[in-house]
């Protein structure tokens, strides 16, 4: 699926920041209490960061993002 909408992109990017902040705070808590960390989400979030950062900081005026809705759905599930 291809989305071409700056507002949608910005909303998903803001959501990404919010989700990563929440995940990082949980990670710090888990480390403090010695709980086992599930790295699956960490790796996926890292990949999404790389993908969305590349688009956000690219020279292109309009965002044409394959999979933006899928990323948004994933972030909403976390």
């Amino acid at each position, binding site marked *: 699926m291809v989305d071409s909408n700056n507002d949608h992109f910005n909303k998903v990017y803001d959501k990404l920041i919010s989700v990563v*902040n929440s995940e990082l705070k949980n*990670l*710090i808590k888990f480390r403090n209490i010695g709980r086992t*960390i599930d*790295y699956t989400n960490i790796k996926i979030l890292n990949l999404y960061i790389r993908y969305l950062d590349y688009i956000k900081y690219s020279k292109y005026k309009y965002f044409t993002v394959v999979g933006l809705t899928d990323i948004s759905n994933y972030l909403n599930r976390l």
Partner: protein
Amino acid sequence: MALKQKLIIDKELTNSIKIIVRDETGLYSPSNITGYGGNNGNAIINFEKYIFELVNLENNVKHRQIQSDDVTNIAEYTNPTIARIINKENVIISATNFNLDNFVDSLYKLSMNVLLNTSYNCNAGIGTDVVTNVVNAAAIFAKYKYIFAEGQIYVIQDVIDNNIILDRNIVTAFISFKPLLSSYIYIIVSDELNDSISDGIANLSKNCNNSKAVNLLSEIQLYYWGMQRSLEANDTFQAFEYFKMAKSLACTIHFNHG
């Protein structure tokens, strides 16, 4: 509107070797109503020195760089001149100025203090936080929040009659002080952390079956990204929490090399 100093750090050019800052306040004008001079007072002709202070908030080590036009004082820096700093020229705060190879990774408070050449008489002894016999103390407090005396910067907390209450006890007695215009920002120096991450990634190929190293690097990168976004959002202390966690994990990367 009152004077509002704008201390800007050039993030692109700043690293652990040198920190690049500039005073973006500018001169008062109808299009810059928060600038120096004009209706805001503090005419630039009264500017005596710029005192830049860099404090490592992990160990409270303080570095001070004074910019002035006094070419006879070798302890002070004259390039750029006061006029050029007011005109928004970059000031380089270099580690070598403090006989350091580099600034260590940490959270720093960087303050820019403009020392004015107006001197006020007073009485101030060691071991107390009160400056007495200050004429027009209330008027001074209305205009300034910081004073400079005997090499020390104090914050004015309150004024009672002709007495000024400071934020801490007086270190060296003084009989006069000068006011300061002051502003500050927080910055994180993270060059060592960047090197650790690069080192870890570069060495992954040597132990491609080491899933622990991959997991660890993923986690560190996530902290690093969170740190940068928190800095952009001016949430410095959240950024520092992520930085510290990334740094502590980065120290273990070397143990995961094949």
